[in-house]
């Protein structure tokens, strides 16, 4: 019996191609968007849950303050992991990974194999314990011994494939400009979404002896992520208290021994590893972290998209069924039972939903690479759908499609079959009268549903506009210095560069397209040093933490940072006994200096110094933050970067010159460089990502709502074809009638806009407040968003209205 229903269903659908395609398209788009968002959210929630004991793994974070505001960071001193393991039996395992800034490349970032250079995007330093906690599957080598020897390197499978293809890598030598490493293992990151992003680890004992010595004693050198695995029995809260007591004591001893004068506090926090992906507000945290509110937003949008698609679907199906009043009447007269009618409708609905289902999964698979590059993930449909929670999702999705088919199929059958066949088949007046109420209520319901769709569409579009405006704003706001046309070159990691640096810089300056050159170890947009400072010229007072920049001569004139008082470094004579400092205005307020020029400052960097200049506040970190107190220390010999201002009109020539000079002075080293403004743009990567996601949401939502409106208006306007004809006969012009038809829908859009605007205002306002500097919300964004949707709605309905109005009135006025 079902077979014949399906056959009949196919025939019916093929005869109504427009309906079929509209319905299929709407549903497919909806499911595609929904599945993508599901996959993303599922992946995000699965972060760091694949480690064998993940519920007991914690990262140790640190909150510290030395007066002023407390800093929270994800980094801890290297020695912490070992000290904890030695002193607390509750810790089963502990390990640490060095912090490295993957955006700040140097020679170790690229390795030479067989005469070819390969880029290792993210390299870190660790020891064998890493793999005790993070139990990656090893395709080559032994996780227990791979990082035991100096100059060992362990590669991710993807990295290994890039360098060695399918050949084994074990024992192969990789050369950097400084050392030669031996590949001792290959680990597989597949299906282990994690905040750990390294592509390679080198063994800690590869570092030089002096540095290693420091690592084992210094409590203030925060350069590592520390991870611990606790025993099941441990009461974490109490345990953390004991750990802090221990650390306080140890730091106390260290301060005493080192004779450092400092006050304040440090507090260690244990963060469950699966929460890292959503953590925020920590310095030096993982780049891949996401704001959990984004997830909530995505889930909400996904549900709305699915809801919209379902609404459209039901809207189409019921609208269409009303056109079939007569058919239903005939069938009933011919003796069809209500159940059979229902089965007929449901089988038609099933055909559509399942075609949509298969179509959308194929589309998802097809678009997966594009999606992955958009969200920067490695998600595969098969892995996600056929693993534990994915199976449930797949099952739920199928159930949902079934329900949708059942509901949309049985609703019209139910309504129509409750009409008496005599009424349906009777005179024209009778049909109209018996349907009047029914038509009226469903029209109202449909209009309500359209408003709901437009709520979502307008909301998403206004948000997108505002996010775009804010992203544009942060990228273009004057920062208080000139970020344009500044090339930042990473100096080679080998220490001998220092001796070549002066000549290198001299050579750079010989070209007329080079306007200025300086050196620095800190720049706006890069990570800053934290410097302990005590103000005053006596030994009283305590150390306070300031952001610190180590810079060379001409730093300020190159970046065009204006002076408020005093002098630049280049204007003072070197003086061995008193170090010159320059501070920003925020630092003066922070330190409470009434007469800053000439004030004495002490730093643990030994010598006493005095302030020789005050510069205007400029934004040296992202515009999420206000300008913090900042101190500049003159260190021409600390050359992490060579900074070059070039002729804006001769960029190519300038870069060519720089490259030439580099080659001459740094044979064998890759030149890594970036433009300062581009580097600053990366501070807004997550905002940019949010923007592009919202952009795609907008596309989806616009598409679905336009489809919905198209279907609905085509149905409603068709229903009014007779009225339209009468109006034409009575002298209504095309323009008047089209306007009348379109106006109703535009009013719906306006209502939706008015309803959603306050909601958007509230939520987007919250988002904007995460920036210390942001655009001011004004009516324009809301008006623009509503106008945009209005325009789309206008053309959607116009198409239908024109089509109907262009018809000769005779056709619709015929009465059989």
């Amino acid at each position, binding site marked *: 019996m079902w077979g014949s229903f399906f056959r009949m269903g196919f025939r019916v659908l093929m005869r109504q191609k427009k309906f079929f395609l509209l319905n299929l398209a709407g549903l497919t788009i909806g499911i595609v968007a929904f599945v993508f968002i599901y996959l993303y959210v599922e992946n995000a929630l699965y972060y760091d849950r694949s480690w064998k004991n993940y519920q007991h793994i914690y990262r140790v974070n640190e909150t510290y303050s030395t007066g002023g505001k407390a800093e929270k960071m994800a980094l801890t001193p290297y020695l912490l992991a070992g000290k904890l393991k030695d002193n607390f039996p509750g810790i089963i395992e502990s390990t640490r990974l060095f912090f490295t800034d993957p955006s700040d490349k140097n020679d170790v970032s690229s390795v030479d194999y067989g005469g070819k250079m390969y880029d290792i995007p993210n390299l870190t330093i660790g020891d064998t314990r890493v793999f005790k906690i993070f139990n990656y599957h090893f395709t080559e080598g032994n996780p227990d011994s791979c990082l035991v020897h100096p100059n060992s390197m362990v590669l991710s499978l993807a990295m290994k494939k890039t360098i060695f293809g399918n050949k084994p890598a074990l024992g192969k030598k990789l050369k950097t400009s400084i050392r030669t490493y031996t590949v001792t293992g290959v680990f597989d990151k597949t299906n282990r979404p994690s905040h750990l992003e390294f592509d390679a680890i080198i063994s800690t004992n590869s570092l030089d002896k002096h540095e290693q010595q420091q690592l084992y004693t210094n409590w203030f050198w925060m350069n590592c992520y520390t991870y611990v695995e606790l025993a099941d029995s441990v009461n974490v809260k109490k345990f953390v208290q004991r750990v802090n007591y221990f650390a306080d004591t140890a730091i106390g001893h260290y301060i005493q021994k080192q004779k450092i004068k400092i006050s304040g506090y440090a507090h260690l926090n244990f963060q469950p590893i699966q929460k890292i992906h959503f953590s925020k507000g920590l310095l030096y945290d993982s780049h891949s972290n996401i704001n959990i509110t984004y997830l909530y937003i995505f889930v909400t949008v996904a549900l709305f998209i699915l809801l919209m698609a379902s609404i459209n679907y039901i809207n189409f199906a019921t609208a269409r069924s009303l056109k079939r009043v007569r058919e239903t009447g005939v069938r009933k007269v011919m003796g069809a039972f209500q159940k059979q009618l229902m089965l007929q409708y449901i089988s038609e609905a099933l055909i559509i939903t399942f075609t949509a289902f298969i179509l959308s999964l194929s589309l998802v698979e097809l678009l997966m690479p594009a999606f992955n590059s958009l969200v920067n993930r490695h998600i595969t449909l098969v892995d996600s759908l056929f693993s534990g929670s994915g199976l449930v999702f797949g099952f739920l999705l199928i159930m949902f499609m079934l329900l949708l088919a059942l509901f949309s199929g049985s609703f019209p059958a139910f309504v129509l079959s409750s009409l008496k066949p005599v009424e349906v088949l009777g005179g*024209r007046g009778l049909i*109209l*009268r018996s349907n*009047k109420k029914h038509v009226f209520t469903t029209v109202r319901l449909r209009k309500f549903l359209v408003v709901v769709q437009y709520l979502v569409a307008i909301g998403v579009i206004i948000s997108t506009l505002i996010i775009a405006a804010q992203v544009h704003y942060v990228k273009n706001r004057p920062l208080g210095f000139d970020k344009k046309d500044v090339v930042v070159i990473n100096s080679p990691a080998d220490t001998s560069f220092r001796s070549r640096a002066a000549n290198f810089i001299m050579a750079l300056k010989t070209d007329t397209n080079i306007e200025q050159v300086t050196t620095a170890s800190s720049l706006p947009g890069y990570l800053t040093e934290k410097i302990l400072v005590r103000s005053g010229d006596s030994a009283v007072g305590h150390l306070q933490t300031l952001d610190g920049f180590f810079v060379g001569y001409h730093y300020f004139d190159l970046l065009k940072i204006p002076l408020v008082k005093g002098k630049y470094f280049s204007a003072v004579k070197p003086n061995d006994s008193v170090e010159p400092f320059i501070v920003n205005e925020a630092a003066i307020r922070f330190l409470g200096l009434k007469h800053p020029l000439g004030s004495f400052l002490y730093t643990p960097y030994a010598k006493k110094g005095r302030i020789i200049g005050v510069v205007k506040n400029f934004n040296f970190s992202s515009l999420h933050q206000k300008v913090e107190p900042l101190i500049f220390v003159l260190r021409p010999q600390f050359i992490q970067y060579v900074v070059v201002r070039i002729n804006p009109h001769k960029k190519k020539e300038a870069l060519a010159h720089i490259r030439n000079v580099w080659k001459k002075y740094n044979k064998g080293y890759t030149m890594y460089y970036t433009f300062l403004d581009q580097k600053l743009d990366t501070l807004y990567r997550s905002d940019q990502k949010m923007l592009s996601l919202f952009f795609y949401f907008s596309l989806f939502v616009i598409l679905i709502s336009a489809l919905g409106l198209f279907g609905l208006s085509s149905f409603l306007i068709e229903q009014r074809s*007779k*009225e339209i004809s*009468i*109006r*034409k*006969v*009575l*002298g*209504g*012009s095309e323009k*008047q009638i089209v306007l009348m038809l379109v106006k109703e829908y535009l009013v719906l859009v306006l209502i939706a806009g008015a309803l959603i605007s306050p909601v958007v205002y509230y939520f987007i306002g919250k988002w904007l407040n995460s920036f210390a500097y942001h655009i001011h919300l004004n009516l324009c964004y809301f008006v623009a968003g509503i106008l945009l949707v209005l325009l789309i709605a206008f053309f959607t309905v116009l198409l239908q209205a024109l089509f109907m109005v262009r018809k*000769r*009135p*005779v056709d619709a*006025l015929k*009465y059989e």
Partner: protein
Amino acid sequence: MIETKQLKKVFKSADIETVALAGIDLKVEEGEFVSVMGPSGCGKTTLLNLLGMIDVATSGDYFFMGKDVCSLREKQRTHLRKENIGFVFQNFNLIEELSIWENIELPLIYQGVKKSERKRLIMDVIDRLEITHRKDLLPVQLSGGQQQRVAVARAIITRPHLLLADEPTGNLDSMHGEEVMNILDELNKAGMTIVMVTHSHHDASYSRRIVHLFDGQIINENLNRI
């Protein structure tokens, strides 16, 4: 007022061609009341639609008040119709979402008549047709006869020179039919030109001239003796 020469209308659908009108020569003078009679399907409605310019002829000439309708553009035809012609249909064709008042008001709105003037005109007409107390009801709330009176009111509100009525009593019982015919008679006596399609000899007896159609052709014209 009306003159047609060899007016033809052919409907083409997928595979059949229907000749609805096969060359009509018809003259209607100002102030005349003409009935069109004939069996179902002979082309009466088609003829009325052509005369009313809501459809265009396949070939032939049609002069309305001296203007060559066939050579006019859609917009000009609409304009000509709006100014001069009123319609009454067998099935009334009232707009169901609009009240009686609003239905009658519609042609005036489309003519751009001012609100106060509209009110005066409507009051005048509904008073004459005795539907004043029903002006706020919806069409479904009226009987067939009352609906047709509203339709007539709507057709004449703009004081057209020509009233086209397609079986205006077809859906009415004889008592209500009589009422409508009396109204048409009065309108004609006041000077309005009327062309009416009917099946009823009684209704036709109100008119001065009867045109008999058969298979799309005029087979007989005769004057009613009064």
